[in-house]
């Protein structure tokens, strides 16, 4: 049959300037170079702290995005997975003397199991109902951590002794943590990019975009969704363990609160849900903004930093409904149409 479409779209080539699915772009490599430079140069401690937080949140937002963006399971309960990771590695280390290098994998498996169970029960719920179920599940974990004080320290939390020992993942310099969290962030990013171009990735997109059509194409929706939430929970928990080692203290308010869960969804929403670069852009903009605003305005005008933060969010959501990555993607399409 003849095609009536006059515009011809060429296949994607290997190298791109702007990020696109299934290829590596110069933009992404540039960002990576900047990240490396940030670690290499000597910065004041407060700035290093912002950079470390940014790496951590870029990785966490990417992990959330696998479930929320790619599989379409918007979760407001990712603090549960984060907290499970942080608590598991810390409890194993503080109570049983097991190094966090091992403990973080145990936490990740536990979180993946919890995520899988949650998906089996709740993945059939759609839209707001699924969101509410994740929020409730996270509250269950938070209540558990608050009340099982013999294990978790309850509301007083758990402290990790700041004895510098690389085998226990406690480092003297912030640079070491920055390297560790950059590795985490890049690992999750590479995984995300591989997933995007894979058979499994296409199955997730299909299940997200139309479940009837995906079922008719032979896709097991429950399996796709459950595995996506497992993977997302696993990666989130690793981030939780790393955060605990960096912060050297955790309590339910810090690692299990609903506010934390909202942050997981907020960064990708601002940067662009369902893309690899989106959550990263969200983290790069929002984390430093929030940290620096708090640093400079926190004492002078209490609450003002939150107002500015909120204002920026509203502006971005209004003018870039598909996130910053959506704006980049439009640019990329314009560029591609121009070339034969």
């Amino acid at each position, binding site marked *: 049959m003849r095609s*009536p479409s006059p515009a011809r779209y060429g296949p994607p080539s290997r190298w791109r300037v702007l990020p696109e699915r299934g290829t590596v772009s110069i933009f992404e490599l540039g960002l990576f170079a900047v990240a490396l430079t940030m670690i290499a140069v000597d910065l004041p401690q407060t700035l290093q702290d912002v950079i470390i937080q940014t790496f951590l949140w870029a990785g966490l937002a990417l992990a959330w995005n696998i479930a929320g963006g790619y599989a379409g399971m918007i979760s407001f309960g990712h603090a549960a997975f984060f907290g499970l990771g942080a608590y598991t590695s810390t409890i194993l280390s503080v109570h049983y003397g097991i190094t966090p290098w091992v403990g973080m994998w145990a936490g990740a498996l536990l979180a993946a199991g919890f995520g899988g169970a949650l998906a089996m029960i709740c993945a059939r719920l759609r839209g707001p109902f699924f969101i509410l179920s994740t929020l409730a599940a996270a509250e269950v974990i938070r209540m558990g951590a608050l009340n099982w004080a013999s294990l978790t320290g309850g509301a007083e939390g758990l402290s990790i002794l700041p004895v510098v020992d690389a085998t226990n993942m406690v480092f003297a310099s912030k640079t070491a943590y920055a390297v560790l969290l950059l590795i985490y962030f890049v690992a999750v990013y590479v995984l995300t990019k591989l997933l995007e171009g894979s058979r499994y990735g296409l199955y997730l997109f299909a299940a997200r*975009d139309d479940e*009837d059509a995906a079922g008719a194409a032979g896709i097991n929706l429950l399996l796709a969704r459950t595995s996506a939430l497992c993977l997302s929970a696993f990666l989130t928990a690793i981030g939780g363990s790393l955060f605990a080692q960096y912060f050297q203290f955790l309590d339910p308010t810090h690692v299990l609160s609903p506010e934390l869960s909202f942050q997981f969804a907020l960064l990708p929403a601002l940067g662009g849900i369902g893309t690899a670069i989106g959550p990263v852009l969200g983290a790069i903009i929002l984390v430093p903004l929030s940290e620096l605003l708090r640093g400079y305005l926190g004492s002078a005008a209490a609450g003002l930093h939150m107002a500015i933060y909120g204002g920026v969010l509203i502006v971005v959501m209004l003018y870039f409904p598909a996130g910053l990555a959506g704006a980049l993607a439009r640019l990329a399409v314009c560029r591609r149409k121009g070339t034969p």
Partner: protein
Amino acid sequence: MTVLLEVKDAVRAFGPLRAVAGVSFSVQRGELVGLIGPNGAGKSTLYNLIAGAIRPTSGQIWFNGRSVGGWQPFRAARAGIGRTFQIPKPYRHLTVIENVAVSALSHERTVSAARRYCEAILEDVGLADCAEAPVSILTAGLLKRLEVARVLALRPSLILFDEIMAGLTSTEVRGMTELVAALPARGFTVIWVEHVLYAIMKAAPRIMVLHRGQLICDGSPEQVAKDPAVIKAYLGEEMNLA
């Protein structure tokens, strides 16, 4: 010839309404069967029963020697039952070829192999030029073609077409009719629901008519066009097939 699909006394009730009220028929391997009937006759419900989207209230559906009634859609699809949707259901965030490749992944190992497999199919349905375009640029007619491409890419043994001609121009209808008519020779068995009667009456050697959840006629286009019950229920007047 062997029987590929056998529906035995299938019933599906929604509350007091029996949308499919005891339908029995069988389809031989390699057949092209048209299924017509007024709106609300139960055609889509019958498709949903065969493709596993809903469970039958009672009755049996045998496909390739296995009872598939109540199977989940993905199992039915993997067993070889492909279907299109009356209202196209594209994956909004994927390109045209990716939309089709998702189906091809049921038999191809890698995404690149699936994409290669789909190139010929896109050529067949006339979407080759927009292979790398986002589906959002497709018009209603092109979305219908996309539905057809997706089900072909699944490589099922039985295809259930659901109004793939609605909204197409007469040129497009001609092209699509040729495509569908050639499918049995390519090893597909086809059931085809359509309201564009001149197309289906010309292409399908056997027509079934569904009315109020029951088959009221099953025969050649000539028999169907003359059948008083069909004329009363659906055609309105005797149809001139010439």
